[in-house]
């Protein structure tokens, strides 16, 4: 009798476990649209969270034109090096995402995450902007306020977009960029060239034929009767050359796998 009861309890517990498991699995959410993508593999968002998030991401997309991707991951992985590179290669590139995208990844299991931009969006990420975004995302991860973190990420993408990207501007419109940023250099060169042309030409008119009137070489003869070249002393001076290798950029902004961003 006792054994039967134990068997029933075990079966009930197993059934409950299965029911609970199936309930948890049904909360995992994934939706990919051209405007946004939510891949909640770690089940961090409720249905209501997802609804809120969808609206915010769609708004951000309308402002930026980038696909905003929020990915939660529970995989316990040992990433040697940059998480940005890992998720670019193993998540972004394997999924059916847009080329211009801003990606946020939370992984509570390894207590870390990353964000990055791809395509044109990557040019809006730089050291300064990454450094401001990192503590916000870190704070969201630490306080487990993932929805708030994702919404603020979307807001920041709009902000980055509004701030513009000189690098992208340079890439897409070299003429406009050069004129906008270096117009004074070109103007200075033009003024110098114009003034030199005027001055040299006017000088040629004013001093026409005034020079080279005596050819010393053809009118002279030198016969040396004594000559000496005595070494007196020598000295050596040194100078340290500054090389450009010391000014390499920090890891946060270095390119890799076609994305730019930072880990947190």
């Amino acid at each position, binding site marked *: 009798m006792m054994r039967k009861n134990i068997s029933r309890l075990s079966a009930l517990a197993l059934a409950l476990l299965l029911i609970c498991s199936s309930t948890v699995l049904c909360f995992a959410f994934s939706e990919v649209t051209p405007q946004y993508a939510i891949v909640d593999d770690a089940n961090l968002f409720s249905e209501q969270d997802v609804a809120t998030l969808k609206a915010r991401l769609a708004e951000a997309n309308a402002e930026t034109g980038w696909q905003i991707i929020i990915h939660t991951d529970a995989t316990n992985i040992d990433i040697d090096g940059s998480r940005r590179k890992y998720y670019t290669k193993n998540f972004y590139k394997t999924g059916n995402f847009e080329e211009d995208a801003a990606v946020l990844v939370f992984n509570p299991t390894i207590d870390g995450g990353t964000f990055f931009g791809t395509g044109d969006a990557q040019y809006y990420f730089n050291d300064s902007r990454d450094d401001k975004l990192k503590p916000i995302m870190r704070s969201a991860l630490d306080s487990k306020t993932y929805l708030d973190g994702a919404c603020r990420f979307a807001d920041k993408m709009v902000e980055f977009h509004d701030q513009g990207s000189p690098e992208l501007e*340079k890439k897409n419109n*070299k*003429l406009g*960029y*050069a*004129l906008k940023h*270096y117009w004074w*250099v*070109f*103007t200075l*060169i*033009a*003024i*110098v*060239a*114009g*003034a030199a*042309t*005027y001055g040299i*030409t*006017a000088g*040629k*008119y*004013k*001093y*026409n*034929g*005034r020079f080279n*009137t*005596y*050819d*010393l070489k053809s*009118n*002279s*003869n*030198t*016969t*040396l*009767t*004594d*000559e*000496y*070249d*005595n*070494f*007196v*002393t*020598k*000295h*050596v*001076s*040194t*100078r*340290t*050359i500054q*090389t450009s290798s010391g000014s390499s950029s920090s890891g946060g902004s270095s390119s890799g796998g076609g994305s730019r961003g930072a880990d947190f």
Partner: protein
Amino acid sequence: MATLNYDCPACGGPLKFNPDKQKFSCEYCLSDFDTKEIQQLYAAQEQKKEQEEIDEQEAQANPSADGEAVIYTCPTCGAEVMTSATTAATHCFYCNNPVVLGGRLSGENTPDKVLPFVLTKEKAIGKFLEMCKKRHFLPNGFASKERFEKFSGVYFPYWYVDQQKEAEMVATAKKRRVWRSGNTEYTETSIYSVGRRGSLVIKNVSESALGSDNDNMMKESQKEHMDVKDIKTQADKAKFDALKKQQTKQLNEMLSGVHPFDVSKMQPFAMSYLSGFTAEKRDLTKEDVRPAIDSRMHDYAQQLLKDTIKGYDSVSVDSFDEKTELESWSYALLPVWVTTYKFKDEIMPFAINGQSGKTYGRLPLNPAKLAVFSMIVAAAAFGLSLLGGMLLL
């Protein structure tokens, strides 16, 4: 004033030296005569005229001072014509026949050498127009043959000096060697004491022997601006003196600017070469030009010894001594085609070397034309620098 005409032995017309043929030509019967032939024919007459000039000067209690006008009688038409005191050959202003004032170039004023004209007036104008073609910013209508028809061939007096010197120089010379090791650049400077002694021969250093305002070009220029008779007040005199000073400077610049001449083509002086041209006698003595000659000789000697110090990156002269061993001076007449032109109230002299065709003289400029061109260059520079900038981005 004793004058001399070189008449054609065939027809009696005036003879002129023809630079193209290097012979004397008669414009009337078209005969040509060798220089030797004419020189022999007129040698006795030249001597006679020289003596007449000397006698005339001795007879005059107050001979004409340089700088004042002198009256002579044209041997062809008998007209009285004024000329400046230094003019040694000219044309009669009435009959336009060439006249040589033989006495001006006699005695101590006899030149040692003369370089006959090689370029005719037409060729000189041609050279001038050729030069103008290369100058794109001249005022419209400036480069016309008509404008420069008044080019006149003038023999200008120059002193030519050759010197042989013993010179000695001590200098400090430096050699630099630069190499890199890692991030360090090393510069090794080796210092040498260098000495040179030698014998130097410097030839054909020339200075104009015309120092005052009494040449044809200056007269022309003064006519345009101011004449002696215009001086009435102290202010007028100051203005006249300033003008004279500026014109003398212009003249000296012009006389040095037409160089170089190929002096190996110089001939022993003969009065007959001047026929058909204007000539000026010198009014500066050796002693007048010696400071300028000595200064140039000193610089040249130093340069010659310095040029023998080779293989160094820099040479600075510590001491230099020189002693002139031999010196030779000669007084030569050199051929120059000269004119003045007025442009925007400014008198501009222009000269062409009568041997080589080298042009000298300030040219008028059309500032608007040049400004437009400069703006085009500036725009091109802007475009090119923008293109370069885009490639570097």
